[in-house]
């Protein structure tokens, strides 16, 4: 039996589901998987690589910027999947180093009892929101960094927006989980958060709701990639194909995420696909500017 090693930052349950489905479809492959937060996982991976060991065959990790940096350092194996035609080309790397598997968008969340009803990013700099907004910090979260890069690239928002946010007392949390807690517990009634966290909790009964801003949401794509030194490249390719296949994408839908593939629907609680406005974003450029962006952000928020 073949063994495939997967490093993923998917939540436990989802990862288990994915693996189970893949193993069911490929009974001769056994998947050993390691799950952790993106940061921890990347740190672990870097430490392993630094000591000259390549453990994983496949990575299924939060964002494309991270993947870009792996590409730059030559750790990834290009693979042209037959399924890629079904995807918009902004969702994968041209050479086939990585493929986005779902769309995790970042939007607005509010506590149901909060007085205001924000509809767009720009609302948060209004005086009614003073001291009441919470958001993930780009210094600690990759998704938030992409969010920052996207919004600062936007003509109407730009760095001014973040300066005003800070002046308006917006608070940067360590990650999306912190925002969720702050909003749900009412300590900060509004927040910036990834879609599925808020929508899932709301479905369970949490007193919050998710709002897709008018200007558009930013997004990460949880790309999948194969390590150059992978021991089991064949199985790894099968895995990539599986994730990108219709079957794999149906799984994504079932888990409550927006599938990357166009021809699959949207999960419950999401607006129609056409109504979700995606803001444009360039992974390579984001990577290039990441240090500068963080620097600037920390100047504003950490004084």
């Amino acid at each position, binding site marked *: 039996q073949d063994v495939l090693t997967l490093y993923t930052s998917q939540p436990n349950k989802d990862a288990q589901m994915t693996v189970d489905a893949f193993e069911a479809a490929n009974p001769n492959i056994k998947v050993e998987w*390691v799950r952790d937060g993106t940061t921890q996982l990347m740190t672990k991976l870097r430490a392993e690589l630094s000591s000259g060991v390549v453990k994983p065959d496949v990575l299924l990790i939060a964002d494309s910027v991270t993947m870009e940096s792996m590409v730059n350092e030559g750790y990834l194996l290009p693979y042209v999947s037959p399924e890629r035609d079904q995807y918009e080309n902004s969702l994968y790397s041209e050479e086939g180093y990585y493929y986005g598997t779902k769309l995790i968008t970042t939007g607005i969340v509010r506590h149901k009892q909060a007085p205001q009803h924000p509809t767009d990013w720009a609302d948060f700099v209004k005086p009614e929101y003073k001291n009441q907004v919470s958001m993930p910090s780009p210094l600690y979260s990759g998704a938030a960094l992409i969010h920052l890069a996207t919004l600062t690239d936007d003509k109407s928002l730009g760095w001014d927006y973040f300066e005003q946010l800070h002046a308006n007392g917006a608070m940067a949390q360590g990650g999306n989980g912190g925002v969720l807690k702050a909003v749900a517990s009412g300590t900060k009634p509004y927040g910036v958060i990834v879609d599925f966290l808020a929508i899932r909790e709301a479905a369970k009964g949490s007193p919050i709701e998710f709002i897709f801003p008018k200007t558009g949401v930013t997004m990460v794509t949880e790309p999948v990639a194969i390590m150059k030194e992978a021991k089991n490249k064949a199985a790894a390719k099968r895995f990539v194909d599986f994730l990108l296949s219709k079957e794999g994408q149906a799984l994504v839908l079932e888990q409550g995420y927006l599938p990357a593939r166009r021809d699959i629907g949207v999960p419950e609680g999401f607006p129609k696909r056409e109504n979700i406005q995606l803001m444009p974003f360039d992974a390579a450029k984001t990577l290039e500017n990441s240090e500068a962006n963080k620097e600037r952000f920390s100047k504003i928020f950490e004084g």
Partner: protein
Amino acid sequence: MDSQLRWLSIGLFVLIATLSLLPSLRLLVEALSHTTFSTSSPMAEVLKSERTWTALRHSFYTSGLGTLIAVILGCGFGFVVTLTNIRGRAIWVFCFMLPMMIPPQVTALSWLQLFGPASPILNTLGIAPALGSPQPMYSAEGIALLLGIQSAPLVFLALRTQLISLPQDLFEAAQLSRASQFRIWVDIILPLCRSAIIAGAALAFVSSLGNFGIPAMLGIPAGYIVLPTLIYQQMAGFGHDMLSQVAGLSMMIALLVLAGMLLQQWLQQRSRYALLGHTAQSLSFRLKQWRLPLEILLALVLCFILVAPLFALIVSSLVPALGMPLNADTLTFAAFYEMIGRQGVTSRAFENSAFLAFFSALVLMLVSLPLGYLLMRLPMRTRAVIASLIEVPYAIPGIVLAIAFILLFAKPLPFIEVSLYGTLGIIFLAYLSCFLSVCLKPVLSAMSQLDPALEEAAQLAGARPIQRLIDIILPLTAPAFFAGGLFVFLISINELTVSALLWSAGNETLGVLIFNLDESGDSVLASAIAVLVVLLVAGLMSLLSLFAPRLPKGVIPWHG
């Protein structure tokens, strides 16, 4: 030198070298790895960056203040509970040990809720702050407060071991001098306990330095960076020399530790005196009219540090989703069913963590006895150096220590070709490395106060070093020794940051389980597990009480 002693020394030297020195050295190598003489090497970047120095300053401030709070809390509690005729002593002690088990995030959150705009209590009283009003907890002082509460039990236990061995006649002599009770505390008890308090404070300081959870929770929103959060920032970045930078930052922490240890040595140098005799009764103060007020004060403090967070934790484990109010309609045990009934990972994590915690405690207890004994025989200076080296792994953030272990053990071990990586073994080793100082500190401080004549008498009886250790030193320092083991157990049972990088499928720990659940939005499940952990630990602690009559006196802090 006696041959037993020689072998003991060699063995322990090898042990310290592998456990403490090797990871630290590996990090140092990593920190310097890309060093060229240009200004752009990672280490230079770290040193050049203004933020490094800000974080260093902040770390020093929060840890220092946190230590102060821990000392005040731990000592206050220790004195009152150990020395006075307060009622229900066992229960107080028992409760005071538990805050260590509640994840600091929970404590912080529960306070934010208690004093925030949504506070049920304040709302009922009609004095809740307006929505969005600033939260004092999001500040350096807030961080320090929580750090202090977290490490107060460390000070408490270290102090307690000392207090129960103080001979009563020293206080009687002071009473005869007509010293008031207050003067007796200041002039006699405090100085006599100084060595233990310093040891406890050093532990609190070092553990605060390396703490990530609390500054992450309270410091990041306030834009207040400390070294561990700065390190985490580096990790979250995409830089290819991230490891070197992280290692470099950790070396800054190591530097802080060394500075702290120097201070500790300097302080302890002036407070090292063996107690003479040891045969007197141990002491106790009568409180009279102060007893009730004190009991109420203690209860209030416990409400804040234990009851409120525990209550919040329980509430959040009984609702279907985060943020829902708890009432008859929403009350559900679904989370518990889910975690106990369905997820095999839960029981595995419990097994793993219990195994790791138990054996780390056991092994470290076994090690710290001879190690402490040997250290006490070394010249002051050498001892200071070795003690600081042992301290480093505990002080650097767990995640960095884990990096060091990956760097060291990712490849199969040379010669035997066995790979520790991906097994529980590597987590176990990392725990040993990390918590050695935790176990050793109280033991060292207890040993320094032993009357040397007691060991000399055993020498005359013809007992060799190992036998003396077992027959004389061990029973006499047993409370310290068990306190050390208890620390290790309590800290490692829900340890997160080390195991976060080192775990692998099948080798989950409780900390990792809670963290993963929490991070993927299942905070209700996470709370349920946290509640189970507290229950487990409370259960184990009560179980230990059953053995108390068979153990040396004073070994189980919450007994008698």
